[in-house]
Each structure stands twice: as C-alpha cells, then as structure tokens.
C-alpha cells in the first residue's frame, strides 16, 4: 500500500498491479489473495481522501498472456485519460493532494494493524472478495476504524503548517464543517489539537 500511495502522491495518474490468476501463484504463500485484499483496502482509503479509487487497478495476467496485458494496459490508459490528471480530475489542488497523501502515510502502520487484525480474510474467488469488501459490515468497520483516524490525521497534518479556523480547514480538505468540528472535538479530547483563544483558531497541541 505504501508503494501505491507513494506513486500517486508523486503525481502518477494511476497505479496498475498485475498478478497471476488466483490459484496459480508460483509461491506456496499464494500472496495474490493478500494483494487482492490490499487492493480493496487501498481503494477504500483513496475514496476516503477523495481520490478516484479507479486510479488503482488490479488485473490477473499470467506470464503467457501478453495479448491480455496489452489490452488491459491500453484500456487502463484510456480510463486514466478520462479521469484527467490526478487531483485535477478530483477537484483537489496540488498542495491539498500532497497533504492528504501525507496524512495517509502517517497512519500506515495503523492501517497495517487494522488489516491484520480485522480484515485478514481468505476466500476462494474474486467474487467473494468483492462481496466482502462491498458489504455494509466492512464499510462501516472501515468508516469507524479508518475514516475517523484518517480525518484527524488530515486535520493535524494541515494544522502543522499553520493554525486555522474550522471553516478554513473545511475548505482546504473538502470535509463538511460539521464533520470538521466533530473531528476537532475528538482530536482535542485525545490531546492532539487545542483551540487558540487569542487567534480564534485551532492549532497543534
């Protein structure tokens, strides 16, 4: 996940992951199942920070399927052209995008933990993964465990540059003001931010 996010943060418009078909892994570990899980989780994270999750694509292409590789890559290229350059396509400026990826980077070890403790599953088919990651249960789990953490991480990353008001935070991060103040409250409870009375702005604690 770190590699994918780093590439996107560096301005790549998309990341493609190619792998052997499920059940055909050269290694007995069958890591392609893990990759599939990771892809789903990464897409959720992208969605949470307002980046088009379609920018990450995973396809199974075995070593002997050169034609398929070409077809998929051409298709992905077309798709990315449709999305537009990263950030621009999402209506995020360069600094906001950088900041959002930096915020994710900060909570990567936490995401790894969430994945290991709560989302480590092993199914047989791709469909089962789709269903699992599309289920309300997983979505609410991710909202609760990751969404909150990620929002606070974004806010603290932003506040590290300068103290800001709720409105300003909301504008830069494109998060609703109500949600910003909710996150600010819980961040303040955790002792991460404080309200600077003199400036009438929030700042890093």
């Amino acid at each position, binding site marked *: 996940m770190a590699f994918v996010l780093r590439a996107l943060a560096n301005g790549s418009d998309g990341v493609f992951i190619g792998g052997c078909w499920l059940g055909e892994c050269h290694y007995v570990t069958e890591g392609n199942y893990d990759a599939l899980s990771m892809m789903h989780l990464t897409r959720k994270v992208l969605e949470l920070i307002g980046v088009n999750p379609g920018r990450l694509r995973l396809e199974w292409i075995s070593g*002997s399927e050169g034609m398929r590789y070409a077809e998929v890559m051409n298709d992905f290229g077309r798709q990315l052209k449709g999305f537009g350059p990263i950030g621009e396509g999402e209506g995020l400026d360069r600094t906001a995008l950088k900041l959002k990826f930096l915020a994710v980077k900060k909570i990567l*070890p936490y995401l790894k933990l969430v994945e*290991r403790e709560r989302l480590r599953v092993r199914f047989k088919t791709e469909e089962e993964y789709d269903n699992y990651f599309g289920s309300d249960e997983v979505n609410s789990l991710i909202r609760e465990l990751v969404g909150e953490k990620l929002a606070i991480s974004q806010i603290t990353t932003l506040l590290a540059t300068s103290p800001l008001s709720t409105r300003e935070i909301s504008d830069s991060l494109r998060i609703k003001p109500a949600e910003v103040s909710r996150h600010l409250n819980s961040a303040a409870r955790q002792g991460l931010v404080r309200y600077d009375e003199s400036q009438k702005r929030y700042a890093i604690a």
Partner: protein
Amino acid sequence: MSRIGVFICHCGENISRTVDVERVAAQVGNMPGVAFATDYKYMCSDPGQTLLKKTIQEQKLSHVVVAACSPRMHEKTFRKAVESAGLNPFLCEMANIREHCSWVHENREEATVKAIEIVGMMVERVKKNRVLPAITVPVTKRSLVIGGGIAGIQAALDIADCGHEVILVEREPSIGGHMAQLSETFPTLDCSQCIMTPKMVDVANHPKIKLYTFSEIELVEGYIGNFQVTIKKKARSVDEDTCTGCGVCMTKCPQKKIPNKFDQNIGMRTAIYVPFPQAVPNTPVIDRDNCTWFKSGKCGVCQKVCGPGAVDFEQQDRLIVEAVGAIVVATGFDLYTIDEKPKGSPIKGYGEFGHGKIPDVIDGMTFERLASASGPTGGRILRPSDGKEPKQIVFIQCIGSRAREKGISYCSKVCCMYTAKHTMLYHHKVHDGQAYVFFMDARTPGKSYDEFWRRSIEEEEAVYIRGMVSRLYQKGDKIVVMGSDIAVGVQVEIEADMVVLATAVMPQKGADTLAQKLGISYDKYHFYSEAHAKLRPVECATAGIYLAGACQGPKDIPETVSQASAAAAKVMTLFSKDKMEREPIVARVREAGCVGCFACKKVCAYGAVEEKEIRDRQGNLIKVVAYVNPGVCGGCGTCQATCPSKSVELDGYTDEQIVAMIEAL
C-alpha cells in the same frame, strides 16, 4: 559514490526504430552516479558482451544497467557477463525498453522520453543493489514423470537408462495412453501395439523405474532440485505383489456389460478388469462403481476364485510422498467431445453433427478401436448400431479445430494424416467400400507425410471433397451428409453408412488443476506453456519442470517422442551436478529492528522463519528475533509485506530499491 555503467541496446532495429538510443545514452550519461553510458547494436552478442566486460574493467564500474529486452530473455546472459568481469552478478539490472517501450509505441519522441524514464528508474534502483552471495542447494537425482503415455514412457526410459531413478505416475490402471489405443500409425502403417507394448514392458522391468498406476498427483511442494510430491495411489482392490495376472477373476466376474473406456465404450468389460490384454501392469482393478460386492455387499466371486488370494476389498487409497529433483509433465491429450458443452467453457458444441445421438457417427479414436486387431470387433470395421459393414463412409475434418466461432482457433495437427490413414485402413478391410473426406485443406508437413496422403487418394481411392458439411441427419439406417464442394461449386449429398469426425485435440481434463498444483502456467485452452516458444520449448517457466508431448500442444508420435527425449536430456543436465546454484533472492531479518512479534512466521508458507535468541556476552537473553533460513525460503516476500516494523527485507526486492524506482519516476 557509485560508478554505474549503462548500456543501451539497439536490438538490431527492434529498439532503435522507435527509440532514439543515442539520445537515451546521452541523457542517461548525465544522471548522477552514472560514470559511463553508451549504445550498441546487439548487446547480447559476443562483441556486445565483450564491450560490457571491457568497460567494467576500464571504467572501474561499480554497477551495471543494461537497457534492452525483457529480463526474462537475457538477465542471465548479462549477469553472467558481469560476473566474469569480476562484479557480483546482482549488481547488474536490466531496463526493459523493448517489450515495455519500443514494441508498444509508435511515436518516436514519446517512446524516447519513456525509455529515458525506464532507464532512470533502474539506475536509481541499481544504486541500492547489494552484493548477494550465491546459495547452493543439493540436487535430488530422482525424477518424477507424470503420465504414462508414449511421452512419459520415453522420458522415463531415457532418464532411467542414464542410471537415475524415475517415479512414473499414471492415472489409468495401465500405462500406454492413447498410443496403445491406436490401430496402425502413419506414415508407415506399422501396428501401434507392436511398437508400443515392448516399451511398456521395458518400463515395467526397468530396475530404475518405480511405477505407480491408478495414481494421481495430490500435492507438489518444494523447488527445482528439491521437490516433495505426494502421490495418491487409489485403491485397486487387488494386491499388486500377490496377483499373478492369471485373469481367472475376470472370466468369472458376473458383471460383463460395462462399457470399456479403452475401447471408446463400444467394447464391454467386467467389473474386475484390465483395460486391455497387454496392460502393464497386468494386474486387474475393481471398478467399485459397477462391482456387485461394492454395490450390494454380495457376490465376491473374484475373491473366491483368486488362487493367490490377491483380491482385497478392504484396500484403501494411500498417500505416498516421494522426493524428486525434476518433474516431467506428460499428461497428453483428450478428444473434443461434441455433444456436451462443459460448464463454464467458452467452447461451443457441434450439435448439428449428431455425435452422441446418432450411434454411427463416431470420432477418430473410436474408428481406431474398430480398426485395431485387438479391438472390440477384432479389427473389422462394423457399425456400432447394427454390426453391419459400412459400404459408404464419410470422414469430416476440422471438427472443432480451426473454428474460431466455436472457440478453438488452433489446428489439431494430426487429423489430416490420421484421416488419410483411416481411408487406407478402411479400403484394406472393406474392399468394395467407398470413403469420402470433407476437408478444408490437407496439412501434411513431415517426412513422407505428403506422399502418404497422396497415396490415400491415388492408390486407395479415397474421394476428397474440399468443403465443409452443413448438416447430417439419420434417414432410415443411413446418415445423410449434406455439404458443399467449393472446388466445383456444387452441393453434395451422400447417403453414408458411417460418419467419422476428426474432432479437435484438447488437453486432458483436469490439466488446469494439475498445473495449479505444479505452479506452471497454461494457455486459455489449458495447454501448458513452455518457457520460450522457440528456444526453450520443453521447459516450463517454473524451474525444474519440463514438458513432453501433447499436453503442451497437439503433436504426432515422432514429435512427442522427440520432445520426451529432449525433456529427459534437460533433466539429465540438471542431474549432471551434485549441487546447483539458487538465486539468492531470499528474505533477511534486520535483527536490530525486529521486535519478535513473529507475524512473518505466521504468514510464511515455506516454514522458513525460525526463532533466534540473541544473548549478550554473559549469555543473558536480550530478545528473541525472527531468522529466515535461506535454504528453505522461497523468496515470495510475504513476510516483508507483513512485518509491522519493516525489519524483514527480501534481497533483490528491498523497500529501498522499490522506493528508489518510484521516486525516480
């Protein structure tokens, strides 16, 4: 400071046509850390490699990047060259600017810019490459051959004759495969049984060959030189060591009307049976689905009449583990069945030809059994429906093969020749009969093949009609075949007594499952893929696994035998050394960072992670860390992805290297 040498290959014109290689060399030469950059027509050629070696020494290079084709093609070549110039081979990386760049782009400007980026990434990566010492592992000089047809038999005999032990595993109760079913073989018309059965006996008698029939591969673990294979030996219900092969049990078995698969279900067999009289081993097997004892608990006649007391109803499936160093896959082919469309298969059926519905519409293999002297009719060509001799017979070519709209686009290769043979056999056996052949083209490349095909027309009076059959249907006891003769431009209608379909050659059922167990790749038809179509036709991309025969693609007997011997030669090459070098791409633990959570141990499927105690000089335990046993590690990198403290690294694919590549982009 690193002194990197970058060598840009033109690949003849393959790269230089779309990539301005001189510009790439000039630009890359200015990158930090690059001491030398040049372009050359053919880097892989002898002068190219000499240039590489000379430059390493003259320029005192610390790392090398060769920008050329795919590393799959020439990574070994260049790493070897680098090694001979005194550098560690793992300090050399390839940048793929052919498959990933020049071949797929047309715009010269854009392709050149992309090539520079690709090379730039590899330059940054190679800076982080470490010297990796080679790992040597012992080679188990025993081999496994999967499939006991002519391919498997030939490979097994060749390897065993060199003095190495061979484990030969066959799914059916007897070895012999499809070749044992054939009547006579093209282009010499020698009897298949006469040339096949002595080889089968050789296998049975060979002191170096261990034969497991009625057995299947359950599990394959390990890697080249060191595989552990679990074989499931299905319950035969007859003890192989005690049975003398007298055959009394078979004569006494009351179940006599079971269709024999070996005779394409037109001949009958008993419930305790050998598939054919020349079977090896000549030990019967009880077909538990059809045996009265297993169905109702009564009968048991075979057990009563068996003199040596070999019949054992209690026998269970057994799992046997064998250690081998190399595997030859020779699982062969099956014929396309027309009446059914397998679930999930993209291949459509040929309902219009009535195969499976009209009894006298048969496939080529069934005709072989009819024509075979040891077949169910004793070698007489008789209709399955009423046992009459067909006086008009129609052969239809390319059933399934070369029919893109039906889902198979390849040519099955053997049908033109075997149909020519069938017309001859038919003419020899039914003197007053007439054979017609509907064909698209006759494909007869091969020694004495075209002469043979000509003979079937000129001497054996087969009538060849160029065109396909549109429809056939039963009318009374005749089959009306309607087709067109495109050479003359007329519609043709023949009232035939029998129709023989040359159905497509396909891989054995379950070929995909076996491939998954072995970890080898296959194409969309489930034929196994060779490592290189031209230069490595008998090796799989997975090291230590070799291919022989029709499991890789349709083949005739001479080709199959050649490939089997070639696969055996490859196995012997591997066995010629006691130890082999393995790529040192293994995981390594940074002990300082390891907190001993052993998440890596949980995910390691190879069991390579061990616990290691770290003690101070007084012998007090400081901490327990993970240790990766390099001999066992498979190099998959899962531990690296799992480690929460980033303390495991896969040599050759470290985070540092990959991040360097991403940052360079």
